[in-house]
């Protein structure tokens, strides 16, 4: 099984169409936390993440997807977060990541 998951399987198309995505929630989130736009996508949040060390939880992937209007499954996935706050301490852009987790969950509660 391990070799199947390695990446030689056929990948499904993964196009993200920002023009057709509903960006209202995303814009809402950015309006409440403008500092999110300063994210450079370095992934320090994921690298330091307590939950990521024991699962495939990936916070960078999730907040990037949300910004692009891809909300499906994000709420459930974000529920894996333990809110320990290490990501906030390592973020080189000083983004309030703990607040962001709570904000995204609040906004996406119905997705």
């Amino acid at each position, binding site marked *: 099984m391990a070799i199947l998951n390695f990446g030689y399987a056929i990948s499904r198309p993964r196009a993200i169409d920002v023009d057709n995505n509903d960006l209202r929630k995303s814009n809402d989130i950015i309006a409440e936390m403008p500092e999110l736009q300063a994210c450079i996508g370095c992934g320090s949040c994921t690298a330091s993440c*307590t939950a990521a*060390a024991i*699962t495939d939880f990936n916070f960078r992937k999730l907040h990037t997807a949300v910004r692009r209007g891809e909300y499906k499954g994000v709420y459930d996935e974000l529920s*894996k977060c*333990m*809110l*320990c706050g290490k990501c906030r301490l390592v973020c080189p852009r000083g983004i309030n990541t703990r*607040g962001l987790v*709570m904000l995204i969950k609040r906004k996406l509660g119905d997705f």
Partner: protein
Amino acid sequence: MTFFAPFTIPFIAGALFMFAAIFLKWLWWTVKLPKVDRRLILHNFFTRNTLVAVWEVVRESLLHIRIFRVNPLLGYMHMSLAFGWFLLIVVGWIETSVYLGWEMIPIQGHIFFKYFTQVNNIDAHSALLENLMDGLLLLVLSGVALAWFKRMASRAMGMRRATKHALYDRIALSALWFVFPARLVAESLTAAIYGGGGFLTGSLGSWLGGVVPTEMLALIYEPSWWFYSSVLGLFFVALPFSRYMHIFTEIPLIFLRRWQLRPTLERKSYDNFEVEACSRCGICIDPCQLQADLGIHDTQSVYYLRDRRYNMLSLKVANNCLMCGRCEAVCPVGINLTTLRINSRAMRRNIPHEGRYGYLTNIDRSSGVGKVGYFAGCMTSLLPAVQRSMMQIFNAVGEDVWYADKDGGVCCGRPLMLSGETDAARKMVAYNTDLFRRYEITTLVTSCPICLRSFRDNYRLDGIEVLHHSEYIERLITEGRLRVAAGAEVYSYHDPCELGRGLKIYDSPRRVIEAVGTLREAEHNRRDALCCGGSLANTVIDDGKQQRIARRMTAELEATGCDTIVTSCPLCQKSIARTATRPTLDIAEVIAQRIVS
């Protein structure tokens, strides 16, 4: 004898309304108390605690001893209004009893006694009683004068900022301010027309009789009593809805607290007693660093409790708090401000989610074998030097240690609790408890005060001794198991909020530092220590604001002229290190450097 006059109607109506409202409130809150709390009341009712509570009511509801400790003038203001008014009622009642014997007199007969002595031709001219009553009136009036003065210059009374009041409070406050001057005027006019009165009303009366024409005096005599009765009535009507409800809420609160009732992470009826016992004195405003360093003026405990009481609490106000506990440490009513705020958050955020943290089953990242467990905690894993130092110390004393989360473990749950996700936090609590039990450890050492607080307050770890690493190291040194070399280094120590105010651990870290060098105290220390600003409890303020809080706190530590700043919390260390110009170390690192093998 008659004890009725039309002017007493506002007073009677107001008083009846007030007592009915208070009674209904008390009844409602008590009926809604959960079973556990009611059982506690029954269990503790016939114990010494009840007597202790009576004494505390005298000390706090009447004399306001705790406010005297904040500022003597402020304490005097509160004491003169509360105790003065209380004595005015009691001595007034004695006065009528002296003149009329033990006759049943309606309540307005006591309150407006000076008026009814004239109506009924009662010979009431005991100089002692009249002077005593005037003295008490003067005592209360001095409190009112100070209250006015405080509105203009709160700084002179030890408060840099006073509370900004809501409309209800302003109405009640204005009525209260008029009550005693109105009484002075009415009683002085009575003395001016009919003679009598003590050193205050009597002298003022004879002076008025000299300068004001008799017809004029007769004209304003009745209206002055009407005014007095009306402001009293207005105050009574406003009381149950304003901050003055604290007068009649603090008393049952003191009893309930002595009967061991406490607020919990979930809301319950007991919270009403705590919320409405807030007098909005505003003593909690000055210690708040969000106010002092960031100029945020809407989130302090006094405003939080007000918003919660009137059902207008915004998510932002509930979330915008460091939960450093500086307000709780000075609150003269002793309200559990942080617990209340957590359960406010829980009300909005504690969403049941059964499948959540399903991944916690079958995870075990622990390593090593030993009866002593070491739980580094999430934050410590960002500071590998702390964990390394702890390992050096363990090795030096030859302790067999089981490491719970050397390669990343599961969070203790407190961060979730602080944000109000109580049920989710319980899953971490269950996971970690199970882990500790499975490895049968007898001692659990952690270097993170956040974890420590949850282990002590929210876990059931009977049979396992939970220690902060500073307590553990202190024990090693006093038992002679760990030998350290003292040096000439000068340290200053920062008290982490969770460790200090949260768990009352102030001395262990200090003794550990003093074993290896000189300790210099910062201006704010121990119970009064400043927060580093990095608190997990606040999810509203941004990074820049966190740094501003940290900067002032670090500056105080550096002002001691220390070589090294020491703390015993990885989160505090992170916050301090980025604003400090001197090395910032954890207490474990300091000790590890000085181990004598």
